[in-house]
């Protein structure tokens, strides 16, 4: 039972993390290749506050706040650069984060942090907390999508210049997407720290950012349900098949490539094409810019 509980907790945290990126990348169309940095901010914040004597639950809002603060800074930076540059800039933020953390002894340096006080919750209770927060996040995302914010995000994802012509303050909306998405990532980070009981710079590197992006992409950019499913599947995969554990990266890489090559709409797109076999609908996933180079 212990192993299952631990696995489910990992899944819940991954789902939460993936949904947070889905808000930024899926709903609002901003590609982020450095999202793990915000997971890291939340994790380090929570761990260090715990070390300072704070009760675990009290660390959660602070973790979210700090992650969102960094997220707003990155969001502001993203406003100045073109879409192509955004991917590289966010990747840079990721490297900057771990590069700085690695050199700071008070953050544990290369060795990271461990041995910080527990949450006070036993494993089943912690699982309930993680699951509860994951479900709340999913509900929040579904709510946002049905509001005017969700509609504006969708428009920005497809064509932000046209949205400006329609009077939308695109910069503020992008910032809002970053703020909410990174706050949620920070929340996932706090849970992450408590669950794995150890965090170090290598826990939040480029590979982690790509992994969470792969969850969003495999799920189908923008789809709350399928991203959650993909996150659950991909985070549990190494556990289910022992031999995959060793080839985890190969599976992730291959999956990303095959998905983009053959089913860029992800699982959501595949299911949609089963339901409506019309060729007329948009060839790009919902909320994506329909620009390309002539074949």
């Amino acid at each position, binding site marked *: 039972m212990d192993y299952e509980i631990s696995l489910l907790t990992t899944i819940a945290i991954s789902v939460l993390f993936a949904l947070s990126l889905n808000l930024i990348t899926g709903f609002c169309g901003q*590609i982020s290749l450095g999202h793990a940095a915000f997971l890291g901010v939340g994790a380090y914040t929570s761990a260090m506050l715990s070390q300072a004597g704070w009760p675990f639950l009290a660390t959660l809002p602070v973790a979210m706040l700090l992650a969102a603060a960094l997220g707003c800074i990155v969001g502001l*930076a993203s406003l*100045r*650069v*073109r*879409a*192509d*540059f955004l*991917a*590289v*800039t966010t*990747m*840079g*933020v990721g*490297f*900057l*984060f*771990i*590069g*700085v953390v*690695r*050199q700071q002894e008070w953050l544990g340096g290369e060795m990271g942090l461990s041995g910080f006080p527990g949450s006070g919750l036993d494993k089943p209770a912690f699982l309930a907390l993680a699951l509860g927060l994951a479900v709340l996040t999913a509900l929040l995302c579904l709510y946002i999508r049905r509001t005017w914010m969700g509609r504006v995000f969708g428009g920005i994802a497809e064509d932000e210049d046209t949205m400006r012509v329609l009077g939308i303050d695109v910069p503020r909306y992008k910032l809002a997407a970053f703020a909410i998405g990174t706050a949620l990532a920070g929340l996932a980070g706090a849970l992450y720290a408590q669950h794995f009981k150890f965090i170090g710079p290598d826990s939040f590197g*480029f*590979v982690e950012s*790509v992994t969470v*992006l*792969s969850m969003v*992409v495999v799920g189908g950019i923008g789809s709350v349900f399928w991203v959650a499913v993909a996150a659950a599947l991909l985070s549990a995969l190494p556990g289910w098949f022992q031999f995959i554990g060793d*080839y985890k*990266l*190969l599976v*992730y*890489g*291959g*999956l*990303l*490539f*095959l*998905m*983009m*090559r053959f089913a*860029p709409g992800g699982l959501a797109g595949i299911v949609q094409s089963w339901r409506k076999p019309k060729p007329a609908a948009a*060839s*790009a996933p919902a909320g*994506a*810019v*329909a*620009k*390309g*180079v*002539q*074949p």
Partner: protein
Amino acid sequence: MLFFELLAQSLVQGCIYALIALGLTLVYGLLRILHVAHAALFTLGAYLGVLVYNASGSLLLAFAVAMALSGLGGVAMFRLAYQPLLARPPYVALIASIGLYIAAEEVFRIVFGASGLSFAQPPLQAQVAIGGLQFKEAELAVMVSSAIIIGLLGWLQTRTRIGIACQATVSDPQMAESFGIRLNTVRDLNFLVGSALAGFAGVWVAILNNLVEPTMGSVPSYKALAIIVLGGLGSVRGTLLAALVLGLIESFGTTYIGQLMDRNAIAFAFLILVLMMRPQGLFARR
């Protein structure tokens, strides 16, 4: 003295970066795709270089095989991965490329093992003294050969018909096509040349470090991306300058603020700072 040592170090590093980034910028200029998987060809070149040299003892053959196979590998990547995705939004190709790179890295690990490959008898290791500084022969050779090969490419691009066709295709594909230029031929050529350069760089890094391991392409791949962005995406001259600048920033940066952040963080901090001040890149003409 330290200054000149750092300068020399920067130049060598800058040359390697330039060789890798050039291929990336050629692809971006042509297709607007960030070809992350490019670094896999760098690693491939390194492995092939070591294997061929260990087997044959001929450095020339090692370079030739590495460059040829890397070049072909690049063309294969274009045909199999990118060409089908040209009509899609740009992030599709980017993510596909990332997936391809990660998978490639793993394949190297599975085939060649995680611990890495070395030369049985590493070439060009002799020390040469110039002006009070010690250089390995290999370091000098890198700088000289990079300069030659890049110069050659520049000449080819501006003085030959095929080169001009390439330039035309970059600035206006439709116009170029109406002049009878076969777009796919130009694209194949760009991938061939760019990837061969990556393979070339790979062999040199193998010689410089006497170690080839599966993840050696990771850092250059990210750095190369940073470089082409710094240089102003698509600008060859900008890329070359940015590569040298980055080499300098890294060498001097790690010496003076290395306690604050590691080498990669310094490189990316610099990138982010530059983009904040000049969102179009350092050397972009627009």
